[in-house]
Each structure stands twice: as C-alpha cells, then as structure tokens.
C-alpha cells in the first residue's frame, strides 16, 4: 500500500480537493480528515498536508484558531518524529501560528499583511519561486536556483520575524527553501515579483530538520503544464508551448508537482506523473 497523507479539513479551508489530487498524482494516497475527527486517528498517516483557504474564517488572525486545534497537537508530535508536513497558504499560516515553523517550540515568525504599492488586502497572481540550498525534504531533489512558476492568492503572506533579522538568519541556516524570483532568476525584492513584501523574498520556510514546510504559493494549483498563466515566460512556458504545438498528447505534469515529488521521494515512492 502506498504511503498515506492526511489532508486536514479545518472548517473554511477550500483547497483540500486539489491538494489531495496532487498527492495522488505522485503515487501517494490522500485522505481528507475533518476538523472534528478523533485526533488520535491522525497518527496512522505517513505525512500531513494543511491546505489553503480560510480556516475558521480567519477569526482573530489567519490560521490562529486552527493552530489551537487538538489535531495540531497530534501533528506536532508526529512532526517531531520526522513525518513530513506541508502547509500551503492558509496551511502555512497555521504552521507558523502553531510554532511548527521554524520550530524550536516557540512562535518566531508571522505572516503579516501584504505590503504592496497602490493596493491593499488580498492579491492573486502567478509568480515564480527559486529553490534555495536547504535540506527541506520537499525541495532538496531540485538544484538550487531552479525556478518554478505557481500562483499566489492571499492577503497575509509577508514572512516577518519576531525580532529583526530572523528571516535572514533562517535563510543563512538553510531554512528558507523557496524565495520569490525576479526575471533574472535571482531573489525578488520588488513588487510584483515579490508579491507581498516578504522579508528576504521568502516564499516558504521550513524547520531545522527540513520535514515541515510552510509555503504561501500554491503548487497544487499548478499541476497541469497547460494551466500556467500566459503572461509568464521561461522554460516551463516554452515546454508548454512546444507540447501544445506537438499535438497535446502524453500530457506532462505541471511545475507545481515538483514539491509533491519531493514528498514522494522522501516516502520512497517512484514518481509517476
């Protein structure tokens, strides 16, 4: 039997189905676990995914209520034992609020309101992330500097630290496996390539062990090569154009699957997509 990943369905999340699909596409099994399931039932899974959405209506702060859920206590224990945990968008906000990212038993980071010129609040667009050197199990199979397109859609996605320099220090420690990329493939400091003003252009932050990743972009919404935004250039878009022009058979996977492929490799599953 393939390893099983639990997709946590807090009330108000809305990305659970496409997340489950991405998990299945790389040869893993996915099970959606509702917020009021018995917490102990979580322990049987081999890994965990916290999908995007608006858990508990973003009451208090995005992710704050879900972070206090009894399910998260079990998840913290299993993460401590080394099981993989992936938080996407609202799921990343939950992991940060729960203190699982960057870890060390306390809340060191926040996902603050986006900082954007001439606009406020929720912002959705396709961006590119670049892979940084780290031991994060979701990205360590990729060459540092690899650029991967995928969408972002959030109002609070700016990684910032409890103390100045926290995010830079995490970057130096290899705990920022994904950063927003500019047109030259380097880290993006400017809007809109850095879509929210995130410090150190951080798009995803992991714990020191590299098994828990909190990322704001949505790799699960970039599963198909054909679904990439037309306004993006680069090698993935060139590959899409070539595939379409060649007749559109033997559909390759989309760029976002690379994150799930890292999970599958870690769990010893050959990637099928």
């Amino acid at each position, binding site marked *: 039997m393939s390893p099983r990943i639990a997709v946590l369905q807090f009330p108000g999340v809305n990305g659970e*189905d496409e997340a489950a699909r991405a998990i299945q596409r790389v040869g893993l099994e996915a099970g959606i676990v509702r917020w009021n399931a018995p917490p102990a039932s979580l322990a049987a899974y081999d890994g965990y995914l916290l999908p995007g959405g608006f858990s508990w209506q973003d009451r208090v702060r995005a992710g704050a209520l879900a972070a206090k859920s009894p399910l998260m206590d079990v998840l913290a224990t299993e993460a401590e034992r080394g099981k993989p945990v992936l938080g996407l968008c609202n799921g990343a906000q939950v992991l940060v609020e729960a203190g699982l990212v960057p870890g060390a038993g306390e809340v060191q980071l926040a996902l603050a309101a986006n900082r954007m010129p001439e606009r406020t609040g929720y912002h959705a667009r396709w961006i590119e992330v670049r892979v940084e050197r780290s031991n994060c199990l979701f990205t360590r199979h990729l060459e540092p500097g690899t650029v991967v397109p995928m969408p972002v859609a959030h109002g609070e996605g700016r990684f910032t630290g409890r103390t100045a320099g926290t995010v830079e220090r995490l970057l130096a420690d290899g705990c920022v496996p994904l950063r927003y990329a500019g047109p030259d493939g380097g880290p993006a400091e400017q809007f809109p390539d850095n879509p929210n003003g995130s410090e150190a252009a951080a798009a995803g932050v992991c714990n020191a062990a590299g098994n828990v990743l909190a990322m704001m972009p949505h790799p699960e919404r970039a599963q198909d090569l054909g679904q990439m935004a037309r306004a993006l*250039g680069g090698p993935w878009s060139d590959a899409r154009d070539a595939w379409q022009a060649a007749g559109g058979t033997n559909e390759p996977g989309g760029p976002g699957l690379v994150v799930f492929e890292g999970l599958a490799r870690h769990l010893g599953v050959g990637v099928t997509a």
Partner: protein
Amino acid sequence: MSAPAAPVQAWSPEELADPGRVSRRLRARGVALEPEEVERLHELLGRPPRWAEAVLFGILWSEHCSYKSTRHLLKRLPVRAPQVLIGPGEDAGVVALPAPCEDLALVLAHESHNHPSQVLPVEGAATGVGGIVRDVGCMGAEVVGVLDSLRFGDPRDAVHVRDVVRGVVEGIAGYGNALGVPNLGGDTVFDRAFDSHVLVNVMAVGIAPRDGVLRSRVPDGDGPWAFVLIGKPTDESGFGGAAFASDELGADDSGDRRGAVQLPDPFLKRVLHVANAEAFRRIRARGIPAGFKDLGAGGVACATSELAAAGRRGARIALEALHRVPRRIAPEVLLCSETQERYAWVVPEAFAAELAALYNDEFALGRLHPGAGASILGRATDDGRYQVTWHGEVLVDCEVEAITHGRHAPRVARRRTPRAPWKPRRIGHDPHQALLTLLASYDLGARDYLFRHYDSEVQGRTWLRPGDADAVVIRPHPGRALGLAFAVAGQPHWCAADPELGARHAVAEAARNVACTGARPWALTDCLNFGSPEDAEVMGDFEATLEGLAVAAEALGGLAAHGQPLPFVSGNVSLYNQDAGGAIPPSPIVMCAGVLREISSAVGLAAQQAGNFLVLVGASREGLTGSSYVRVVRREDACAPPPLDLSAEARLQSLAVAAAEGRWVRAAHDVSEGGVAVALAEMLLGAPATRGLGIDADLGVLEAPLEVSLFDESPGIVFEISPERAPRLFQAARERSLLAWPIGTVAAHDTLRLRAAGEVLAWSRVELAGAAESALPRVWNEEL
C-alpha cells in the same frame, strides 16, 4: 418563545371596495401588491388573505419572481437543442457534455443583484454571488466558477461611483475567494448612464453527474416526504427583498431600504457545501429520491410551496420547528425573510433524521455558527393544499394551484427608430495619441488591477484565466481532456442606439469570444436589465432586444448541433433600473458556454513567436459607427453599432474552431472595442515581457482610411499562425466565403509598428502598457 400576535387578516371584506387604498396601506408595511392583485388574491382565496398570505403572494407576484411583465415575451428565445437537458424554469439550466465527459452535465445560472448593490455595494455584490452559487448548488452540482458582468457609472469625477466600484469588487472577492469558487472573469463597462444604477450580474457554473441532477420538486412516488431546512438560522434579514428589487429606487433609498439587504457568510456556505457534497454522495450511492432547492426571494414560504407545487403535491409546514435566531420575530417574517446560506431538501421521511444529523452532528454546523444546522419542518401531502402553521395557528392555507397560478401584467410597448450610422464630419486626430487615449480609458484599459482581487485558481481547474484569452477556459474533470470556455458580452452603448442590433452583437460577441479559444459555443444564459415596464419605450426596447437575442442565437448554434439554435438555458429579468432621471440603457447581458474536446488545443490571445503571420478574418473595415474611437477620442455620440452579418458570423466562428482544433493557429483575438489597433496592442501586451515580442503590421491591405483601418469595430478575428500553416487558414477562409487579410507578423523588437495610408506609427511596449494600466488603479488610489 412566542412571537407578537399578527393581525389575522391583511384587509377586511369591506375594505376591498377600495383596492388602491389597500395596496397603499400594504406597501407601507412592506407588502407589494398592485390594486388589481389585491382583488385577484381575494378572489383566488375566496376571502381576505391572512398577513402571511399577503406577504407570500406579494413576493410570488413580484416582478422579480413572477416575470409578470415579460414572461410572454421571453417565449421568443430559442431554448431547445439536442444538448439541453433542462432549459429555463428551474434555478439553473443543465446541458449535456460530449465525450470524454458524457457522464457529466454542465449547470448554468445567471442573475442580477443590481438594486442591493447600489444601496450596499459590498453586501449586495457578495449576496449576489452567494445566491447564484446556490442556484447551481441546488441542482446537485459542484460549483466550479463564477463570472460577473458589471456596469458602473463614470468614475472620473464621481466619488460615489468609485465607492460603488470598490465596494462591489470587495464584495465579489470577499465572498468568492472565501467560498473557494474561482472567479472566471466576466466584463466591466463604465458609463454615466449607470451613475445611480449599478448593474451587478452574476453567473455561476457547475458540474454534476449526468444521472445525478437534482430537481427542485417533491419526487414522484408515495414517500412519505419530509421537508428538511438546512443552513443558517433564520432571522429577519432580507425581509421584503424581492419586493424591493421590483420597485424603483427613490432618491433617499440608501437610507431606509437597508433592512431588505441580506447578510452574506461565505465561511458557513463553504462548510455547508462540503456537507451538501456528502449528502449528494449518500443519496446517489443509495438511490434515495430527493428534491433540493435554494432559499432566495420569499424564503421558506417560496421554497417549500414551490417544491410542493412543482411536484404537484400539497404541504404541511410546522414553522415552529424551524431553527432560528434566539429572539422574537413575527412568524410571517420567519416564513418569508431572505436569510442567506439556506437550502431546503425534500426527502423520504425515513431518511430525514439521518440527513438532519449529517448537518447537525457530523458537520456540527452549530459549532461553527451559532444556531446553524438542519430542522425537519413538515411533510408533503396529496390534498393539493399548502398550509403553514405556527404552534397550531394557521398562517397560510391555500390551494397549491393558487401559488403556481401565474400573473400577467399587460404592458404597453412602443418601438423606437434605431439610430442611424455615424457620419464622419472631419478628420484630424493624431492616430498615435488616439490609441493611447483608448487604452488609457476606463472602458478599454487593462483589467489586470481588478482581476488581482479575485482568486481565479482555487480548485486547480483553471487553464486560461481572465486576460489570457478571449474566454476563460477550465478543465472540469481533472485527468480528462475536455475543456469548458466561458465569455460574457453586452455593449450598452450599442444597445442604447439600436436595441435589436445591440442584442445581436451581444450574442455574437459572447459566442465569438468562446470560439476564439477553440471552444464550440454550446449554450447561452442571459439577464435582461431594463428600466420600468410601466414605461412604453422601455417595453419597446425589451421587445426589440428579445428579437435580436433570438435571431442571433438561432444563427449561431451549428457548432454544437448542426442546424440547431444556440439555446438559452437559464436567465433572469431585472426591471425598474430607473428613477426620476430616467431608465438605464437597455442592457442585455449574455454569457456563452463553450466546449473544447481537447483542452490542450485551447488558444490564448497573446502573441507567441516572432516570425509568425498575423491574419485578419471577418468583415471589411468600412466605417467608424458605434466605435470607441468616436466616443472616447472624438467625444461624439457614436450612433448605431456596426452592421452584423449573422451568416458570416457563424462561418467566422466555425473557422476559429477548426483552426484551433486542427492546431494551426497559435493565438486568436476578437476585434472588438478599439478595433484592429487595440486588438494588436492587446496581443502584444499579453505576451510575457521577457520574450520581447513586437508586431509589424501593414494595414494598407484593408484599403480603408487610416482611422477606419485602425479603429473600426466591425466583427473580426486576428489569428497568429506560422508561415507554413498560413495557407491552410486562407484556404479555410475561402471555403467559408470569408475575407482574410495578411496584416503583419510577430516581431522581436518589443514595439507595435503599424503602417497604413502612407503613415508609419510606432508604440513601444512600455508606452502601451503604461497607458493600458493607468485607468483602473485610479479608482482605488486617487483622491478626488
């Protein structure tokens, strides 16, 4: 908990002598019955109505619910075609899909939420989205997208217009993003005619198993059948909303009609939809017959009576069982209020307790929202009577037939002479500046700033999003090749000048936009936004509009089924968009849904590769009537729309679909507002900036004066095609008796260069982008 005693009768038998006085008194208490309807209701019941009955019939007979002024005219629209499974009449229309999705059905709904959005833009637009997704959800479908068609006032100098724009966008974004339904675009027009009457049309699309579509009626068979109400606890919000939507907005209305606007809760709706999906799964797996309906205008009363009436049954509703907020509310208000996020099931009594437990215990709605859940309200009967009681006291008791008895309000219609075409009086605008002026206008400027507020990617189905192509394209079933395309059209300036021709253009453009992506136009929905039906000229325009919609739809259905019309499967009429200052322009808004057999063949609008040819196919460039150039650059009345040859239009769409399905073309873009010049600029701007693409075009081949070749808005499509494949496109155009002109090539120089009538014009990409992106951000950022 007992409610204040309601007056037993809405009027006395003696008062019937003066129905006008009764009507006025009822209106003061929020019940809208015309004098003639007071008499009609008295006659139907054989006695004066109880208060709750007057409220119920006031809503059932409102324009919003009864289409009393327009129903007979709507019969003009073609609604039948082989792909139609359920046409107009239910909450949503349903059409069959071809392989590889022949086991699925596409569910489409289209409504307006105009009046509420003018009064409270955020809540009005949000509940518009909330209502339309319920219309699709109650057919047993998963909602896979929403579109919106917005008609705003002129934001250049009006603070209140900017407030409405920002509020409506916030409302749509706040609801749809949280609900987890992707925004699939739509269209936006700005015009002074909508300064005090915003139009917010919303469309929702869904996917259901073809053999699992739910109907809004008590199922056939013995039952016994129970009504189960689910969702938010009922309160007084939205009481009288349907009557509100059927009245003219008075000058002081933004103050005292707010109680009639409903309160949205996308968080609760999201969980409700997850629970509904589980309910759908169970009834399908176990073959349990069920009816399902959303609660909209008229609340519990309309939903339960219409479920009963559509199943040719009666009903007994025990209203005291309804889950509701813990405060005293009059029972007739509970019966008819429009509290959001509610649905009504009708299921076998043996299943009712399990169904209620699904919502109350398994999904524990009450732990997410105080008082939310499910309650079993009563049962269907075979006696043909609809009866509602409150702790034994009768609130409503009438024949079901009285409820289904349609209302018809005869209206006088006066057709007017359409405007003549625009005649040039002088020439002499700098064409270089003219293109920049057009791109920098609110009407033609880039919509990117607006789209960024919306989540178009949630559910992971989106392939071509707003701005990528002339229509949005999604993959309804992951893993299968089929694609669906959606586009919206309706040009108020053209409809104002010539309602019939403007309506033809609306259908043609929506279908053409779908065809540009390579999708076959498959079905239409519409919303007809007009002024008061008591105004003869408004009704004349309405008749002309229906004629135009029908004629165009009859001509453009052949790509779905040979020789068949493109069917209207769902729609809505919004009247009384009018005040003392006059009516809005006739505003039919049309959505076209299209089908791509292979989504990988979907065509975008952006230029792809240097060296490819650009070919214009369509009508010859002959004039500037109806053009944005005349209106925006010359600041003149643009008069009649350009002519439209529907036979040529059908052939043009057939060419676009053949070219995409055969994978000959690399890009396709409709020539519409701003003509060929704006179409080419948009193709350039749509390409990734990093590719550095430009366009070289020589419009001399069009043999027209400079401004005409640049800005004529006659129908056409610009295709990008490789030099090797271009002969096939010309051959296919010839076979269809279509005119085709090689107008240029994609270049590698980041510039738009146009040659025409001896002049050479050039714009850098930066210059074009700067103009196109300048307008919309001002609405959010500029101090007036």
